[in-house]
């Protein structure tokens, strides 16, 4: 019998799934083959030792430390539902913010810049304080005007702008991914 075959039987032996006959074969082979006998002895000693390695005591206060960990971490739990909720909220805020910027704040600044400048020249001649007051009145009225104008914003413009933004985002992402890949290479 070859040593390799015996080696396979030895493995079966340690699996605890060996027949009486196979056991005999190992014993017989080992009587003749010193090398196998020695290897068997070493492995058997190791496995016996491994099986009897002492169980060590768990450090005192283990449970309470785990419980502390559980309780303190529950406050920041990462429940997928909560994460999804936050993501949606942030996304919603971003869309809202964009709309405000594109259709309310930007037009307001663009147009009111000239008017207020002209206004200021007039106001400067009279009174700074009344000028400020007037400015407030003018701005407020213009704000009202702009809000009314907003209704006239066309759907087509809206869609075009959003598409452009999405494209820009995609382009930035592709660019970043590409650059990262370059760096990795």
């Amino acid at each position, binding site marked *: 019998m070859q040593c390799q075959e015996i080696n396979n039987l030895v493995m079966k032996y*340690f699996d605890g799934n060996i027949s009486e006959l196979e056991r005999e074969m190992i014993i017989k082979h080992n009587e003749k083959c010193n090398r196998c006998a020695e*290897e068997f002895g070493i*492995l058997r000693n190791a496995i016996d*030792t491994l*099986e009897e*390695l002492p*169980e060590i005591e768990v450090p005192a206060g*283990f*449970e309470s430390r785990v419980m502390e*960990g559980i309780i303190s971490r529950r406050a920041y739990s990462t429940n997928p539902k909560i994460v999804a909720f936050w993501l949606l909220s942030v996304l919603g805020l971003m869309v809202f913010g964009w709309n405000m910027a594109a259709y309310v704040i930007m037009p307001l600044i663009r147009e009111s810049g000239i008017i207020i400048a002209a206004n200021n020249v007039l106001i400067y001649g009279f009174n700074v304080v009344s000028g400020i007051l007037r400015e407030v009145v003018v701005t407020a009225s213009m704000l009202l005007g702009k809000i009314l104008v907003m209704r006239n914003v066309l759907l087509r413009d809206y869609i075009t702008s959003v598409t452009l933004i999405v494209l820009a985002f995609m382009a930035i992402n592709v660019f970043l991914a590409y650059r990262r890949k370059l760096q990795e290479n």
Partner: protein
Amino acid sequence: MSLIASDIEIVNQCLAGDVNAFEVLIERYKKAIYNTAFRMMGNREEAEDVSQEAFIRMYNSLSKYNPEYKFITWALKVTTNLCLDSLRKRKAETVPIDEVFEIKDGKDTPEEEYIRKENQKLVQDAIMKLPDKYREFLILFHHRNLSYQEIMDITGESLTIVKNRLYRARQMLKEELISREKEREKYAVPGNK
């Protein structure tokens, strides 16, 4: 009341919102978990970190626990995964191996005691040298005395892979020990046996 049923009862209590019920499960399995982690990591400090983290993870994913399996099987699955994760992370650093000896009740002679200690140290050192994946199987099968089926459940591997890994692991252990033996013979004083 059987042990399995009460494990599930406790799990259900926890799921119903009773955090403190979990302490019973920790008490019940901490030894198995801590010792498995200890044999995987090789030192007490990391073993405690890993086993604490394992219990916290278990608590947080209790709803994913499948009562078809024994609780300990699932617990060991979480633990061994964490062990493998942190072993992968530490890779570069060298970590001390704690030696642990059992204090026997004086049945052995001092020589026997000495030999046993030496053997334990040798085997612990040797299994720490094995690749993590193989050490895991040796520990589960030979140290924790688990069945093939349980190891399959814990590792999620097929029977063939479990058998193969064990085979390879023992082979590696044997080779490691033989090379140590040779090393020792080389440096041993001639004539001193």
